[in-house]
């Protein structure tokens, strides 16, 4: 399962890189979106994958998943959104419309 997930992340990276290296005006932004997804998934996966054990401590001593990578990825998603939005702004600006 972990191997399959890793391969999927690798595929996302490959798709993102292919797009990133393209000559089109929006290629770099689309590439970064895909790479961002892959990186978020990668950090998330590094925290181990657990099913049905969200980090919500309602009863003591019940093992839960590692919350730290989740906290990191949560802000990474929002910041990533901010970066892409800013790039889109610059793109709009440079296209003069």
């Amino acid at each position, binding site marked *: *399962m*972990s191997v*399959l*997930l*890793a*391969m*999927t992340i*690798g*595929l*996302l990276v*490959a*798709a*993102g*890189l*292919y797009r*990133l*290296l*393209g*000559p*089109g005006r*929006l290629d*770099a932004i*689309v590439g970064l*979106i*895909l790479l961002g*997804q892959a990186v*978020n*998934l*990668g950090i998330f*996966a590094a925290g*181990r994958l*657990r*099913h049905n054990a*969200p*980090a*919500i*401590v*309602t009863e*003591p001593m019940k093992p839960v998943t*590692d*919350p*730290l990578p*989740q*906290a990191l*990825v*949560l*802000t990474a*998603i*929002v910041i990533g959104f*901010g*970066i892409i*939005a*800013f790039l*889109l*702004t610059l*793109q*709009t*600006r440079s*296209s003069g*419309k």
Partner: protein
Amino acid sequence: MTGVFLPALVPLLPLLVALFLPALVRRYPKASASGVAVLLGAAALWMLALVPGLEAVRISWPWVPQMGIDLALRMDPFTAWFAALVLGLGACVILHAGGYLAKSPQLPGVLAGLCGFTLAMLGVILADNLYLLFLFWEATSLLSFLLVGFHHEKEEVRAKASQALLVTLAGGACMLAGIVMIHSHFGTASIVDLLVRTGDGSANALSSGALLLFLLGALTKSAQWPFHFWLPNAMVGPAPVSAFLHSATMVKAGVFLLATLAPLLSAHPLWTPLLSACGVLTVVTAVLRGIRERDLKALLACTTLAALGFLTLLAGMGTPEALLGFTIFLTAHALYKAPLFLAAGNLEKAFGTRRIDELAGAAKCLPWTGVAFVISGLSLAGLGPLPGLLGKEYLLKATWVQSPWLAAAVAAAAAGVVGLGLKLLLPMLDWRRRPEPKVAVPWPMKLAPLLPVLGTLVLVISLPAANHHFLGAAAAALGAPEEAAYKFWHGWTPAFMLGMGALALAWGVFRVLSRPDHGPVPAPFLPLFEPIFEHALTALKQSAKGAGKWLQSGSPGMQIGLMLVPLGLIALGGLNAASWNPRGLESEGGVAVWLLLGPVLAVAAVVAAKARTTLTLLVSLGFVGMVVALWFLWFSAPDLALTQLMAETLLLFLLAGVLKKTGVEANRSPFSTGRALIALAGGVLVTGLVLKSMSLQWDKPISAFHIEFSKPAAFGANVVNVILVDFRALDTLGEILVLAIAAMGATAALGAARRRSPLPHESDSPWLGVAARGVAALTLPVALWLYWRGHNEPGGGFIAALVAATGAGLLLLIRDRRMNPIALRHASWKLCLAGLVVALVSSLLPLTVGKEFFAGLWWHHGDLHLGTPLLFDLGVFLTVLGFALGFLRHFQPNRPL
């Protein structure tokens, strides 16, 4: 120790004042130049008064103690004597500059530069730590560049000043490497501590590379062969600057450092042969070059080169006799070279020329300048009982002890220098000619060259006393024998005979050279290192230009690829960083979910990579984002799933807006094998890295603490949210600050253009309008509910803000009138500001009751827990909402999708 030292530093204070008061200098240029000169002169006398009976002292403040680097200064009779010379000559030079550049608007800058130069040179002399010395060393290089480049409007001046800078800085960089290696070899970077190791054999074991690197710094600075060419070129600077550069500062820094470390490092087998060879070759080059010069300043520069060659030779021998000679030679040279250059400046000013033949007989037209020039010139040539003669005597004496052959060679070279001295002096004394001065020379310029000459005469007259208290003490501190004393007459020693022979030879050389019909002097063998340097520099610039063209081809793909490849290589190293642990790869959840989600993600990713139309691109990207969200949900991350879902929705909304507006078709480029190969390699590499990161095993993750204390200490069950708003709230504060800045940046980039755009029209479809308004009306309550429950259940400020922003996005989609750009802009920045203020207040509140920054304050009532982390989360909510609105307003689709 401090009691002796700190008073010694008091004279430096007026220097600082002079350095930082350019306004005063601008207002009273003449008075301030003389005033600074008087201050420096007083400082010089103070320093001089310290020399007799001074014990070696050191004072240090910690700087980088863990690396053994201190802000350490030292003072002994030699450094104090040298510092007094620098201060005294600095006073003369500044006095002269006040007259020489009186009409120049750049006078304040030059005066400040000269003061800074004096300080930097004093730093080199007094620094105990080699790293500190290096800093001052580089400061002298930079300041000399500014001073030499005084006439910066001329191309030639700029080129020559840059050349001097490049040569000395390149040498300085080598020296820094050498210092690091010497530091690690001896275990100390303190000069005092290094000299303690003299004679214990540790210097023999120093690697030759370290020594060479270290010497490169000193040799380039002191313009030794083969780096000699920059010094005559630096003559393009104004006369006072040249006088200072050549007499006591800059070039003397190199030989000073050599002589200081000579007792220790001369034990190294390379030291003496290398430095002797460089010194002798420098003298020979200088004489050969000087023979051809007709320019007064250039000829003086050649004699400086020769003197530096002799000093390097003396430091290279490193014996007590040689250091005895070094001290008097250094002193004599400083005292005669400064007045010579200053007088040359006066002659240039008065007669408007620097050609020696045109200046014939000038001495009697400017009597004061002439007296200074002639006495100094006699000292240079070693004719008459002057310090220059002492320097040559002790030079020959020290070399004779080393090797009679070397002494003979030195005598021959010295004969050449004497010949140059005659070439300088005799035309000036030509009584048959009487050139007319065109400009009157002001008094500070007349006085400045006379002061060092006065010093020279005092030194000679009081030699027995000066020996004991000043010169002898200074030489002894450098490493000469104790109770050293200088005297002119030593009897009929071999050194004396050699000197006499040299004089005869010099006269012969001069007679041959001064024959009027000798025509152009044939260019003898002069190693042409300057062209080599210039060619190397040109080649470097060309290759940089070529590399720039190749690297910055203008193709984004190429650009990004060049960054990615090294990154990939670094990442490849990460694969070998630690051992694999297959146990870490076990995970819960089963293969079934992958079979469901994996293929969807794979297909969506490939389609997104190849998408050729806007719609395909948007749909495929949407699929990617949604599948990732589902994945988060499956693997126990409900908060992430919610965030991802909302961010993805907003992102697609923005992207659609941009694509519609700019009309960019998504992708028209053909398939490229190269790109595909790089992409594939990257994908494989990342697959490996992800597997590696999963396989690493932690014994005790940091989050164990977070899970344990989430409920009891932070009163929240949702650990992810508690981490964001409590445990690591400072990070979050930084993040929302970044988001607010991004929103402002976007406003700055697009703001003006948007203001004029017409208000959007209502949508054509009434049903869409009703449905969108209905959903949008629900988003705000839902968002507030998500925010409120976030501390204990999935939710929180980030998610709530994105949900609310989606509602605003819906209203934009139907072009609701309330969503006009101006209203959105105001709402955006107000929300961002309010959010940041709320977040800051919540972090500062604990300080009011004596708790730490960001410590949570809680108020409990039954099951209700209210606290500052919740307030902080509200700040996050407001900021993120403002940020999202700020971006959304730029992307209102004017046409339906």
